């Protein structure tokens, strides 16, 4: 049978319609998932359901104890085998400090209090309630758990770094080098291996996991435990009115990072 261009296009059109009709993308559009996947309009009231773990960081307490942030970072990076490559380009960070005007971006403020400028602020993955990194990850290596934690399955990460592009807080780091390797002086990038926790490989993205493993053992996140003496950090279920975080959030005025983006961070700052 002779097929001319016109017949071919008709056939291709039918096939495309049939294909689209059965495709999941089309169905999910029909089911309104596309809207759910898009940014919610900022300011839309968010209903509180289930457990949502969250953290409160008191910036003033870190100003009172200048060494506290360094100690929190050290304990976090030590127990999680976070490598230290010794240069900012390759840096892996789970918990880190940045200047106030970088954490709470100056561009979106007409004025910011002078005394806060340059002040180091402890930052980490916000475990957003509407996490763009989860939507961006094509392999579901990044996922949101029922307790609100945004987790990583390093076995599945293919290193495409979509999540890094999607995270507006720079909370993810890419392993450009082998974390288990050594520098030119023969020093291991992981100073002291913690035998209870795995490391990662080159080509994998990593970030803070709210100390999921410690939580499973009934402990607090390591940084919160370190800061407990100074009452500088609080942790718990944001949806439980009787939890410590809820109490702190009731009593203190707090702000979140870039709320206009609608990611609903689970980390709050007392200014």
């Amino acid at each position, binding site marked *: 049978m002779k097929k001319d261009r016109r017949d071919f296009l008709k056939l291709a059109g039918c096939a495309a319609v049939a294909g689209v009709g059965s495709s999941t993308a089309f169905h999910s559009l029909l089911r309104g998932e596309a809207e759910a996947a898009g940014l919610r309009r900022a300011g839309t009231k968010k209903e509180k359901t289930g457990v949502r773990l969250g953290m409160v960081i008191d910036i003033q307490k870190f100003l009172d104890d200048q060494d506290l942030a360094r100690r929190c970072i050290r304990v976090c990076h030590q127990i999680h085998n976070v490598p230290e490559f010794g240069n900012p380009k390759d840096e892996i960070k789970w918990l880190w400090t940045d200047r106030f005007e970088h954490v709470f971006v100056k561009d979106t403020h007409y004025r910011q209090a002078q005394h806060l400028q340059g002040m180091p602020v402890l930052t980490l993955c916000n475990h957003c309630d509407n996490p763009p990194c989860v939507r961006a990850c094509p392999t579901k290596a990044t996922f949101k758990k029922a307790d609100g934690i945004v987790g990583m*399955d390093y076995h599945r990460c293919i290193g495409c770094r979509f999540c890094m592009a999607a995270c507006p807080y720079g909370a993810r780091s890419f392993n450009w080098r082998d974390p288990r390797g050594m520098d030119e002086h023969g020093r291991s990038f992981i100073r002291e*291996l913690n035998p209870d926790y*795995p*490391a990662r490989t080159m080509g994998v993205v990593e970030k803070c996991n709210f100390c999921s493993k410690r939580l*499973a053992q009934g402990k607090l996140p390591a940084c919160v435990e370190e800061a407990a003496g100074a009452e500088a950090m609080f942790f718990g279920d944001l949806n439980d009115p009787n939890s410590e975080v809820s109490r702190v959030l009731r009593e203190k005025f707090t702000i979140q990072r870039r709320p206009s983006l609608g990611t609903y961070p689970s980390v709050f700052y007392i200014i």
Partner: protein
Amino acid sequence: MYGSGRIIPALIIFVGLMTFPIWYNAGKAQQPPVLVLPTEHTECVRDAQYMRESHMVLLHEWRDDILRKSGPRSGVTASGMQYQRSLQQGCMSCHYDKKNFCDQCHDYTAVVPDCWACHLEPTKEAI
């Protein structure tokens, strides 16, 4: 055929050399590795046959359940033994001799798992 006096014997020698491993081992059964089993325990989390065939399936199940669904980090065997559902802290706490356990079979079957790229092998002190 021109040159057959040299080509045919050369071909026979070539084929003989290429197939040397086949006829050298013919009639002899390859011995599967003998594993060094932990002395402190007589049972594993599942029966030996299942572990032999499907330990990797079990590890993947543990991983997905614990990581994604906050599943329990410990389990109990049929006879009541408590164990950690963890490669590094569960499996390797009994099978701490990786060289004589994991590596034996994996070398024999030429299967290279990438577990150890991230998970830490038990150290000398642990043995």
